[in-house]
């Protein structure tokens, strides 16, 4: 069953082809979606890729959340569809209110571009569903506003509901509670600062692959099956 992954392209996105290659490399079918479209093509998952959507004017993600396609992405998410925001995509998801909190400028106002060790701390999300808790993954990061921040009550909720899916082993940006990625209450919306799509070929780390494999095998796979089943009737 081929899983179709929609990848939203905003003006200023720059990781859409990396995501497409990562998805295709694992047998998925990537489909680029333009931010100006008001509806989603038939897809089984949506990825908001990294980059600088709308030039990051005002704040990262502040304008992208008003892109026409975002209303359709929100409906898809509310219906339980898997939505993954990576780096700038994570920022868009918090601005859109699909995930709580916000991404502040890094500690020391430093742009960080390196590979870090991250630990999977919850398998409750569509991106970590088939990855063992405690697994350490080498993943690239590349951001200026990547320090996750939220009020204490939100942090307590994220912890108690096991919604912190990824933590930095050695915090590179001042993120609260070493958070590198979180998910929604249902686990179908995930945001993370590291770039698993850049850790999917033999030239570097392959540690992004288990995350993409989770996405393709989990609810997205079930959606694909249901959609194909529905079409054949």
């Amino acid at each position, binding site marked *: 069953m081929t899983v179709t992954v929609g990848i939203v392209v905003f003006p200023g996105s720059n990781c859409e082809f990396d995501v497409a290659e990562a998805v295709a490399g694992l047998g998925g079918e990537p489909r680029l979606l333009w931010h100006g479209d008001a509806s989603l093509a038939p897809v089984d998952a949506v990825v908001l890729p990294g980059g600088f959507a709308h030039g990051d004017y*005002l*704040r990262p993600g502040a304008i992208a959340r008003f892109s026409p396609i975002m209303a359709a992405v929100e409906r898809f998410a509310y219906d339980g569809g898997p939505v993954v925001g990576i780096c700038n995509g994570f920022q868009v998801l*918090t*601005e859109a209110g699909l995930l*709580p*909190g*916000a991404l*502040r400028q890094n500690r020391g106002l430093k742009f960080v571009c390196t590979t870090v060790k991250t630990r999977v701390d919850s398998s409750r999300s569509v991106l970590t569903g088939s990855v063992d808790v405690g697994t350490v993954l080498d993943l690239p990061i590349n951001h200026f506003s990547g320090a996750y*921040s*939220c009020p204490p009550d939100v942090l307590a909720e994220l912890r108690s509901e096991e919604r912190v899916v990824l933590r930095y082993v050695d915090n590179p940006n001042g993120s609260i509670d070493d958070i590198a990625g979180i998910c929604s209450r249902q686990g179908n919306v995930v945001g993370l600062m590291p770039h698993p799509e850049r850790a999917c070929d033999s030239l570097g780390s392959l540690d992004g692959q288990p995350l993409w494999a989770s996405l393709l095998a989990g609810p997205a796979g079930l959606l694909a099956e249901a959609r194909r089943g529905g079409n054949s009737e």
Partner: protein
Amino acid sequence: VGGGTATRFRVLGADDAAARRTVEELCRRFLINPVIEDAEVSIESPRSLIEELPA
């Protein structure tokens, strides 16, 4: 380290209260992220705005 941004613009409103409501709504939905930022709204007289801003 904290940074700040001052944004000045003209608002068409029936009165100061209506203009303030418009700007506060703009702040809430767009100009700031309330999770990490605060906004302070002040209203200047139409005359000073007209004199200072280009048409």
